[in-house]
């Protein structure tokens, strides 16, 4: 599903964010990206959704070489990738329903499809009863669930999550994790950048450790 060959990423301030990254992520895998702040976790995720391009090397996502992807095709790549951020990135002037529906509208879904799909994902994350509320009235955990609902609404092949439990208490964190496991079981490949030792250890999934831009460890059923 995702392959990286000798990937380097340098930022303009001469910071080497990634160095010689080689990784193969199979369809349906659940992978934790761990490592200290500045290790390159977020950069690696950005490469996958083509938020940035590699300085050197190849990044292949679902058969597409993202470095060669023309700007006009980026939206089509992103329709296969759901993204969940630590800071939620919700639209606070729109309702829960609208936060999900506008993404679906953006990819050309019909009104009927939108209604069905929004209901389905809101049921899945348990927010159907709050569909008319604005996000600021939701708790942190609920806002993160809304982000996940938005990210999976168009049933993407890949879900990228950048420290989704970073702002949550252990109970809500575990709720989010259960939700992500559930989504993963349905076939979605999940990459989760995390600092949450408790969750990583409890999950017993593949753990890729980054340090100073390099992969220093890649373990099946690993720990933090």
């Amino acid at each position, binding site marked *: 599903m995702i392959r990286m060959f000798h990937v380097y990423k340098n930022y303009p301030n001469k910071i080497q964010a990634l160095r010689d990254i080689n990784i193969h992520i199979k369809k349906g895998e659940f992978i934790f990206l761990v490592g200290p702040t500045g290790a390159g976790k977020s950069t690696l995720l950005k490469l996958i959704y083509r938020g940035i391009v590699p300085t050197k090397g190849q990044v292949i996502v679902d058969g597409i070489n993202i470095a060669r992807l023309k700007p006009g095709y980026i939206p089509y*790549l992103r329709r296969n990738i759901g993204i969940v951020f630590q800071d939620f*990135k919700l*639209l606070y002037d*729109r309702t829960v329903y609208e936060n999900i529906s506008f993404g679906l*509208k*953006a*990819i050309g879904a019909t009104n009927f499809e939108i209604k069905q799909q929004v209901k389905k994902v809101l049921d899945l994350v348990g927010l159907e009863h709050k569909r008319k509320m604005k996000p600021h009235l939701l708790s942190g955990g609920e806002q993160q669930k809304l982000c996940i609902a938005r990210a999976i609404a168009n049933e993407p092949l890949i879900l990228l999550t950048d420290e989704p439990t970073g702002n949550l208490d252990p109970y809500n964190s575990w709720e989010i994790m259960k939700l992500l496991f559930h989504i993963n079981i349905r076939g979605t490949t999940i990459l989760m950048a995390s600092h949450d030792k408790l969750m990583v250890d409890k999950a017993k999934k593949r753990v890729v450790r980054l340090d100073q831009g390099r992969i220093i460890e890649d373990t099946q059923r690993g720990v933090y």
Partner: protein
Amino acid sequence: MIFENMGFYFREALLSFRRSALMSIATILSTTTILIIVGMFLLISLNSNLFLENLESQLEIIVYLKDNISKAELNTLEGSFNSIDGIKEAKFVSKEEAYQRLSKDLGEQKDILSAIEINPLPASFEIQVKDPKMIEQIANQITKFEKVEEVEYGRETAERLLNFTYLFRRAGLLVLALLIFASILIISNIIKITVYSRRSEIEIMSLVGANSQFIKWPFIIEGFLQGFISAVLSIIILYYFYFFAINKMRQAIPFLPLVVDIIDLLPIGIAIALLGSLVGILGSMFSVGKYLDV
């Protein structure tokens, strides 16, 4: 795809108008203020131009005729004048009429004329030209006619006046160009701020896979609406302000030439509407483009 979604884009544009009502109102008010300033300058320019045209139209050539001119020669001469391209009107002033005018101009001092036994004043033609810039050329042409004693057109005054109106018009155009340039910069910056305040929305749309057209169109429509509403508001304000000012000026200076015909004022309205709408559209287009590269 664009036209299929036009209804949606319009709804989105109107919704975001409502969602960020304060920002929209601030944008409209600031844009309206700028457009009013541009409109005021355009109105002043239009009236100055009318004033200058009026001034220029008062330039005329006076052709003094020899005393021994016969009736037939006079008719031929008048015919020749009328056949010269560039002459608007040639009015004959007889010796008697000239004498009466002088006597009238002298007023209480007209008695001095009684000392003169015969009428010394020559008959003349007062010639108005279509284009004041042609006055010298036409005057030279007339000098060559037989039975023409002297041609007078106030060469220095005419040259000075024409130089002044030329410079005034050029300066006006320069100021207008600068003002329009400044207003484009200011309005597009105001719009840039509204787009900036919603950059996260653009970023999120881009991240969920919306293509650039889908993201841009609601902003473009919103920019157009903001610009157009501002233009309409400024036109209404300028209309009332202008006619109020004109009435006041007419009371103060009754014979001042002023533009009052709506048809003559229409181009200014159209220019303001175009300026507001186009800058609204282009301003949003470029600003959104800046935040699209996520």
